[in-house]
């Protein structure tokens, strides 16, 4: 190796010396254009040299203009040479006639040093950045939109605006999508579920020209389905979840029961916002944010989170930049963020700039004082009430514009302003945005009606054009863009197609509502049973009881009501359904584990360690596939054993188990005080109990892979693309595979074994259309002449993996 150690050391010294020299010239390292240079130039120069102001013929709006200089003809900045250029010369000039800025104080030395370093580093600029007036800002109040005339009988106000817009661009109105595509699209968009094949067939066959509007109305009138679909959207926007960061430190509160109820009832949006911003205990989780133990950055205190979340969620304003310093990208100031934060803060709020105290104090207020102010002397609760009042004031166009834009983006794939959080960007149609917003306000802030208005337009019902989804496409002109199913939509569809709905919600919501129009429920058939008529039982005795149920097909629904003195656990086909340990409060739980063939129902019941009589009472009400009501109830036909089952409620093959007939307990009146609760459980089971929705369970690893976020921040859009890691999960994740296996068995049992009939049924259920001849042939390739359950599972998997399935289009 050439070169000795001392040579190397010498070279190192030279490098060190060079580095030192460089360090002396640029003591603080590379200059940060956005955070260091822009504020100086904005403060000192833009008043006279930006936007419409070009005094002395000089504008700093773009890098090019800033370097070029003004009327003098001299370059203002020579990149890399701080000694040359008018800008540095003029800001440091001693002569007041020459010095810039021409009014006010000279630039402080530190500011000059930053500019000098910036010039020395060849004046780096941000791609796309321009000084100058805000890019776009609409008036606070909604404009009155004069609708263009309807063309070709397309009278829907949305279409009058969109058609006129297309006409200006020389484009004809978009053609309609076909009816089958429409019902699938509308079902997934409005209630988040695949349409039932019978409903698709009926809809396609329907000759009524008003059928699309009728369908939209019918879908939206399904309050529970609508609410539980849109709950995903609101959980994201309101940062609500059933588990997640902050729960272990007690730093987070759910608003789940409140939100579910509000959506089911479709409460007006102004009331919705008011109850969130000026909350009751049930809804205060939103303004409380997430509290981490320990010190947090000044821009993440609870009041600042409040300001950010109120700004983003309800006003489409991004106050995150303006939580540390005046925003560089729009007009929001640090002071405005803190003033909004101070509305909820119990103590006076000191302003921190970039995490350093400024000594200044915030005055409770909100960003649009022209509409009304908040009395800072009132206590926080009153200030919040006043803020809520101002937010929902019809004069505040941003509240309705923000929501209208978000819903439009959900239904058509792109916002009228896009991205949906960039409400400072110009909308592609200010008329459409404001017409929809004004109509929404005039309707009494009716969210359901707003969805109906959008979904009944021809703009929504148009065919998705090929290659529509290229990023950056002009949404105004391309029509509805295909959207990927959310993790929740995908999971719901999967559960539906495979019959693998879990039984239990994690969300604390009331889904079963007794239907007042329904006939009175039948009285309970179940009786208290044990292994002897007198219910005698040693302390801690544990017995297993079983019965069997033959079914031709999986039932439409099943609900179990179980109670025992003192505790019981119910298993159906090896799946644990639930547990109860209080005989006065029976377990009431939907059961998803029933399938065609023999079903085994096992209840493990135990006496208290303290002893006393023991007994069990259980009844399962089912609605069979053919619509017939069925019931299984504990009686003398049940059997018992003292051999405990394994942890799946069964007995391994080869275990010798002695089964004996159960005994009906003589004195049934011992537990009479529980009869009412038992009957109420059965009454609930008679009400329509739709299958569980993915939004109501905690995020699973699969849903997380499919883009369900952890809701540490407000989330306003879901990932657009399927990623490789997700695709791996779709190919081999075990729970998914098990679900497909189950689905294969079910479809084979209900539709088999004719391969063509199976394929047609699967296509109808998953894609709302029959397979083409080519597809039928390909499907037969998978199924073979005599399909096995595994082959059906594989065809179902292949259909679910089609982009056509995973996209809403």
């Amino acid at each position, binding site marked *: 190796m050439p070169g000795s150690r001392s040579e190397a050391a010498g070279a190192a010294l030279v490098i060190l010396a060079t580095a030192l020299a460089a360090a002396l010239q640029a003591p603080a390292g590379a200059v940060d254009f956005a955070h260091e240079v822009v504020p100086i130039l904005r403060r000192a120069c833009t008043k006279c040299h930006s936007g419409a102001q070009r005094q002395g013929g000089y504008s700093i709006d773009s890098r090019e203009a800033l370097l070029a200089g003004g009327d003098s003809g001299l370059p203002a900045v020579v990149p890399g040479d701080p000694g040359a250029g008018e800008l540095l010369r003029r800001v440091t000039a001693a002569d007041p006639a020459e010095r810039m800025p021409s009014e006010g104080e000279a630039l402080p030395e530190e500011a000059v040093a930053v500019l000098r370093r910036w010039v020395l580093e060849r004046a780096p600029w941000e791609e796309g950045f321009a000084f100058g007036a805000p890019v776009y800002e609409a008036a606070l109040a909604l404009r009155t939109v004069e609708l263009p005339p309807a063309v070709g009988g397309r009278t829907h106000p949305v279409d009058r605006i969109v058609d006129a817009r297309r006409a200006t661009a020389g484009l004809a109105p978009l053609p309609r999508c076909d009816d089958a595509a429409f019902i699938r699209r509308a079902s997934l968009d409005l209630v988040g579920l695949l349409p039932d094949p019978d409903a698709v067939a009926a809809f396609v066959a329907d000759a009524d020209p008003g059928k699309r509007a009728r369908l939209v109305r019918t879908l939206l009138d399904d309050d529970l389905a609508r609410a539980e679909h849109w709950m995903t959207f609101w959980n994201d926007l309101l940062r609500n979840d059933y588990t997640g960061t*902050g729960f272990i430190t007690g730093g987070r509160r759910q608003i789940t029961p409140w939100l579910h109820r509000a959506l089911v009832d479709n409460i007006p949006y102004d009331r919705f916002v008011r109850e969130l911003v000026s909350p009751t205990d049930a809804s205060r989780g939103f303004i409380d944010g997430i509290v981490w133990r320990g010190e947090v950055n000044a821009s993440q205190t609870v009041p600042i989170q409040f300001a950010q979340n109120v700004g983003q969620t309800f006003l489409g304003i991004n106050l995150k930049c303006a939580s540390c310093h005046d925003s560089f990208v729009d007009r929001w100031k640090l002071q405005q963020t803190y003033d909004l934060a101070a509305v909820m803060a119990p103590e006076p709020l000191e302003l921190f700039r970039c995490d350093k105290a400024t000594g200044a104090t915030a005055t409770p207020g909100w960003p649009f004082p022209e509409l009304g102010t908040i009395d800072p002397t009132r206590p926080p609760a009153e200030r919040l009430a006043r803020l809520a009042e101002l937010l929902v004031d019809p004069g505040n166009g941003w509240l309705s514009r923000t929501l209208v834009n978000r819903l439009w983006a959900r239904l058509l794939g792109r916002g009228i302003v896009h991205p949906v959080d960039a409400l400072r960007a110009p909308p592609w149609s200010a008329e459409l945005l404001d017409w929809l917003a004004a109509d929404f306000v005039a309707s009494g802030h009716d969210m359901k009606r707003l969805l109906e208005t959008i979904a009944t337009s021809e703009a929504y019902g148009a065919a998705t054009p090929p290659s529509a989804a290229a990023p950056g496409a002009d949404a105004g002109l391309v029509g509805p863009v295909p959207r990927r199913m959310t993790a929740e939509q995908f999971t719901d569809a999967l559960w539906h197609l495979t019959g693998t709905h879990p039984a239990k919600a994690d969300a604390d919501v009331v889904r079963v509502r007794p239907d007042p129009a329904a006939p009175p429920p039948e009285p309970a058939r179940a009786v208290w049973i044990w292994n002897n008529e007198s219910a005698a039982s040693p302390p801690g005795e544990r017995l297993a009881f079983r019965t069997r149920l033959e079914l031709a097909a999986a039932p439409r629904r099943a609900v179990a009501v179980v109670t025992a003195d003192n505790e019981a656990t119910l298993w159906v086909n090896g799946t644990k359904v639930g547990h109860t340990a209080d005989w006065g409060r029976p377990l009431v739980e939907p059961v998803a584990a029933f399938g065609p063939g023999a079903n085994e129902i096992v209840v493990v019941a135990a006496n208290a360690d303290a002893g006393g009589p023991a007994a069990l009472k259980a009844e399962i009400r089912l609605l069979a596939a053919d619509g017939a009501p069925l019931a299984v109830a504990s009686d003398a036909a049940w059997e018992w054993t003292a051999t405990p089952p394994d942890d799946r409620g069964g007995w391994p093959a080869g275990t010798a188990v002695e089964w004996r007939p159960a005994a009906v307990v003589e004195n049934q009146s011992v537990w009479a005080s529980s009869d009412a609760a038992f009957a109420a459980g059965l009454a609930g089971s008679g009400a329509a109990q739709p299958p569980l929705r993915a939004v109501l369970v905690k995020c699973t690893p699969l849903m997380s892979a499919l883009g369900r976020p952890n809701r*540490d921040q407000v989330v306003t859009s879901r990932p657009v693309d399927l990623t490789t890691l997700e695709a791996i999960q779709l190919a081999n994740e075990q729970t998914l595979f098990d679900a497909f296996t189950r689905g294969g068995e079910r479809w084979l049992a209900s539709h088999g074994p004719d391969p063509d009939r199976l394929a047609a049924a699967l296509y109808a259920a998953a894609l709302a259309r029959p397979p*083409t001849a080519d597809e039928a042939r390909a499907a037969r390739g*998978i199924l073979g002449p005599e399909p096995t359950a595994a082959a059906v599972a594989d065809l179902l998997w292949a259909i679910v993996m089609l*982009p056509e399935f995973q996209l809403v289009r």
Partner: protein
Amino acid sequence: MRSIHEAAARRDFLKSLGAAATATLALPEPRLRAEGVVHPKATADAIIVLWMAGGMAAPDTFDPKKHKPFEKGLAVADCISTFPSIPTAIDGVRICQGLEGIAGVLDRGALVRSHVQPDLGSILHSRHQYHWHTGYVPPQTVACPHIGAWMARVLGPNNPSLPAFVNIGQRLEGIGENEEIKAFTTAGFFGSEFGPMNLPFPEEAAAAVRPPEGMAPGRFADRYKHYKALLAAAPGREHASDHHQESMLRSLDNAHRLLSAKERAAFDIALEPPEVREAYDTGRFGRGCLLARRLVEHGARYVEVTTEYVPFLHWDTHERGHETVARMHAEIDRPIAALVRDLEARRLLDRTLVIIASEFSRDMITEGRPGSKAADQASSPKDFLQEPAHYGQHRHFTGGSTVVLFGGGIKKGFVHGRTADERPCLAVEDPVTITDLHATLFTAMGISPATAFDIEGRPFYATEDGKGRAVEALFGA
């Protein structure tokens, strides 16, 4: 009233003013800011982070101080390390007894004995781990990407068949603080394409890239073949140029390629000869090191292996610390030494950066008091020990910890920084913050610490505010 032409002219003028900014706004985020960022020349192609989850005490591992064995009445003031020190392959540098394997390969690496973390008021493991893994203190206004996601996003995998970012050994369900751990075990705003492939059990990693249980390999291959046939038969192939459809099919193909490729073998540690498995197998962490080696050999970019964070377990010693740390020594020493030797033998060490790190260090006996600053965390040494259970590092300490680095262009046989020899053992020479340590890792991997992406209209940097400075003294292997 102005004429319509005037209004139009003014609108055009305003439009031209805003055009540049608007054009940028319309682009999808996150968006790499290319201008003005010069990436350093990479000295490493891959990185393995050996994560000592729960707070590895420097005085009981890589930064030994005065030591006294336990005796009833032992004055805490007289003892800082609960292990005696041993010599290492670097002249004059000692580490704690129990780490003989690592001591033997230490001449291939460097010690940073002055890594410091902010106090954050209340020292909470998952929060400090979030900070260490993303470079940002939670909570943040945007979802921060893990540093592995940065590597995946900026560099991608070395081999396109493999995931770029693999996370070994950490369960994300069924343990304490799991939601907090999930909060940083993510690609954040980069999107899940760049997120970790999580393999909590190294011995089950092969299953993560195998057909599901219950599905024969032949059926798995057939299913995809049939799927392609079904896809080819589908109408609407005119939508082939559709962006969504294209990316969806590409991902499914990628996945299928991995699940069928020979690289799948990278996930299967059972393919190693028994004596190699034996050399690594001190438990899950050891097996994870072996898996990490195989993954890097096959082209993964960022692999993290953790001893696993579970509150009050492993390095999270709140009592019987000495006993527990002796067990942790035994768990990490052999596999780490084997990993370094194996990478070296395969000529991979020069281009693979291996780093041992933890969210903070510990000090003796007493639990930290909430609100106490780093300097006070060890300022109460008046205690006397009566029970062996109290002999150990039971107190969180953010004022000085040790990071060990091997390979990837890092200077060999080098010690950077120093902590005080008396309590509080603060970093007294060349303190290295998380920001600068990250800058060092990014620099080694050829990523400028000032690399930024636009998200929500503002820049978000690889190191906080783009200000991270690599510790230049560490380079020069």
